[in-house]
């Protein structure tokens, strides 16, 4: 990864809507260099998608989230990958991580209601052959995600003019 790409990623992680022209000025390189660096990272799977960080509490929809600790039996030759892919293909599943520690997979699940989410765990997740146990924890409040603090409104406490 070259220096330019790393700098671009840092900027895009903060705000992926900065126009290419501005990115080029900010990094002191040509528009062409910025465009092709981004293009390359999109092609090689470094940049997968551009999405907003949404505070869903501000949106009037039904939405519950849970983190599920899943213990599984790894399969010969495939380790955890096969069972992980069985799990992450469900639409309800938003993230899946292989973890060190007392369980194997951490699964983030999202559904409209508690009932739907419970149904997912009991009817889809727990019944998978290699799943030996689950522990479901519901998300009560989101304080910070992807480096963004949710309730702290951006404010500037500085004097308007200072020497």
């Amino acid at each position, binding site marked *: 990864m070259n220096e330019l790409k790393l700098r671009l990623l840092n900027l895009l992680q903060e705000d992926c809507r*900065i126009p290419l022209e501005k990115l080029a*000025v900010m990094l002191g390189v040509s528009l062409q260099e910025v465009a092709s660096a981004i293009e390359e990272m999109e092609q090689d799977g470094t940049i997968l998608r551009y999405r907003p960080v949404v505070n869903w509490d501000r949106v009037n929809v039904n939405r519950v989230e849970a983190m599920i600790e899943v213990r599984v039996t790894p399969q010969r030759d495939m380790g955890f990958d096969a069972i992980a892919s069985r799990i992450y293909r469900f639409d309800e599943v938003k993230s899946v991580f292989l973890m060190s520690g007392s369980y194997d997979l951490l699964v983030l699940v999202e559904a409209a209601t508690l009932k739907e989410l419970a149904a997912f765990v009991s009817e889809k997740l727990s019944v998978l052959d290699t799943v030996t146990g689950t522990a479901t924890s519901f998300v009560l409040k989101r304080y910070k995600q992807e480096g963004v603090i949710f309730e702290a409104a951006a404010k500037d406490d500085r*004097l308007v003019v200072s020497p």
Partner: protein
Amino acid sequence: MSERFLSPRVTAVPPSGIRRFFDIAGTMKGAISLGVGEPDFVTPYHIRNAAMDSLLSGETQYTPNRGLLSLRAEIAEYLARRFDAHYDPETEIVVTVGASEAIDLALRATVDPGDQVLVPDPGYVSYAPCVTFAGGEAVPLTTSAKNGFRIDPEDLERAITPRTKALIFPYPNNPTGAVMRREHLEALIPVIERHDLLVIADEIYAELTYDGVEHVSIAAMPGLKERTVLINGFSKSFAMTGWRLGYACAPKPLTAQMNKIHQYTIMCAPRQSQVAAEEALRVGRENGYKDILTMRESYDQRRRLMVDAFTGMGLSCHVPEGAFYCFPSIESTGLSSEEFCTRLLRTEKVVCVPGTAFGLSGEGHIRCCYATALKSLNEAFARIGRFLGHLGE
């Protein structure tokens, strides 16, 4: 109240031009300010946390006058590593209430009635008044865009009289962003030595240089330590303006005199600020000054954006190599700096500081700080562009 109570020496000093502008701008809703003079970062959390720990564990007492020895040791280490400037923590460093106090100490410890002190113009607002308060005479030393707002050796030579005692040396410069590189220092030093001048080097922006230009401390130039008061602090480099913590470094006899004034007037800088500063330097030493480098990169990106924006609007803007200000020329508009800023504020609600707030040679320029959120910067550029468009009609 009787007029007799007021000292003429103090009443003769005009209030800061910045203050007057603040009074207009402060009341305005929806204004975007490019008039600030401080980082837009909050002090890194680990630094704030160190101060909280110190408070919680009951560290509420005075510190030694010169500051905690452990902090002074970190300062000495930092100056040696970053700028190759070497000071003895026991005898050559005083920790002060901001670099501002350090400037005052340096002047009061050295200036007597009749002494002249050269103050680069445009320059930070406090130097000349502090010279006056110390009983000396501030003599402006003009710099201009044509030499990148650097001090020209011939201009310095011409400004020196038999009464000249000291030169204020504030680089990287507020408001111009000028940096005196090594070659510029080398050209100036023979003049300084020939006239036996004391150098009061305010290096508060030392960490904020760009385009691969690294700050060179004049105190680290051969033979210069003996005639230099090196002033620095934590405000700009670690985003710690409100903590009010700085320091002055000088040869032992001069430090002793500065410390005498400090001990009688201030006693010591606030303990929690000292603890926080020590944390900033200690962690910086361990992680390669990551906090500073991250902030510097962010300023640099916005610096490029601002220079590009002004140039695009047809305002000539010398490229600032340091600090976090642009100082574009607005001469092409035919307006004075004051008029330009007032009209810009009234019509487009953008706050810039007239160059004249920093001395007469600031006429024809405005100071714009780019340490502000990207979104606000872009909005400010759009508004300034519109303002210029209307002027042309």
